[in-house]
């Protein structure tokens, strides 16, 4: 499946990027296409394109603060967790995304 997401932590210098790396690695390992935008002290990086968002099956927001541009994901299936969850259990998080999508398809 195709996953897009945003990582954003309070200080914006550490957890944001660790969460990004962990989610991307876990997603790829599980055979998905995944792109994570980071919103940190430096600003927004790896910004998601509207095409990426449009094509995504699911959105993962790993955030401890309000993210910028949340309206971009309106109408999409969204999973929101604190960055700690993405850092601690990235594989579980991807699994959860798979399950949520399965439920959606079963509906």
């Amino acid at each position, binding site marked *: 499946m195709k996953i897009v997401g945003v990582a954003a932590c309070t*200080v914006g210098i550490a957890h944001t*990027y*660790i969460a990004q790396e962990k989610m991307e*690695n876990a997603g790829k390992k599980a055979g998905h296409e995944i792109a994570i935008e980071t919103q940190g*002290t*430096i600003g927004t990086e790896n910004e998601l394109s509207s095409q990426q968002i449009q094509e995504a099956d699911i959105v993962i927001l790993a955030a401890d603060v309000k993210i910028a541009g949340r309206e971009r994901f309106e109408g999409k299936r969204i999973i929101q967790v604190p960055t700690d969850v993405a850092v601690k259990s990235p594989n579980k998080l991807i699994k959860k995304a798979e399950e949520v999508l399965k439920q959606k398809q079963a509906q």
Partner: protein
Amino acid sequence: MEISEILNDHTIKTNMDAQSKDEALNELANLLLENEYITDVKSFMKDIYAREEEGQTGIGNYIAIPHGKSNFVKEIGVAIGINKSEIPWESLDGNGVKGIILFAVGNDNEGAQNHLKLLSLFARKLGNDEVIEKLLQSEKTEDVKKAFCN
């Protein structure tokens, strides 16, 4: 842009012998002071502890990433300590830590985009299990640098 640019031989300490979180933080903060990244250890530590209050900085896998923005930071940088033994630390997996990465970032980062970028690339590496494994096994400064730069 190379991650090695953000690393400094003089702020990396392997075989560290800290017995507590406070000892480890003090030792690393002093390295930052000696190498002119920060201007005052006590005030800098106060800002680091303010972030510690907000939530765990132990990210699991025996790694901690104490950080926080501080007015007492002159230049963006990191101090890395590889401790001989595990020390108690609030962490996501309940374990203590052996690798401590202390981030120094100021509140005013105008003109520091390049350093911030390097720091973000560096932080990203901490999300990689292979990097962490090599980091924890580091015996020498050179090993720490290799862990991040390969």
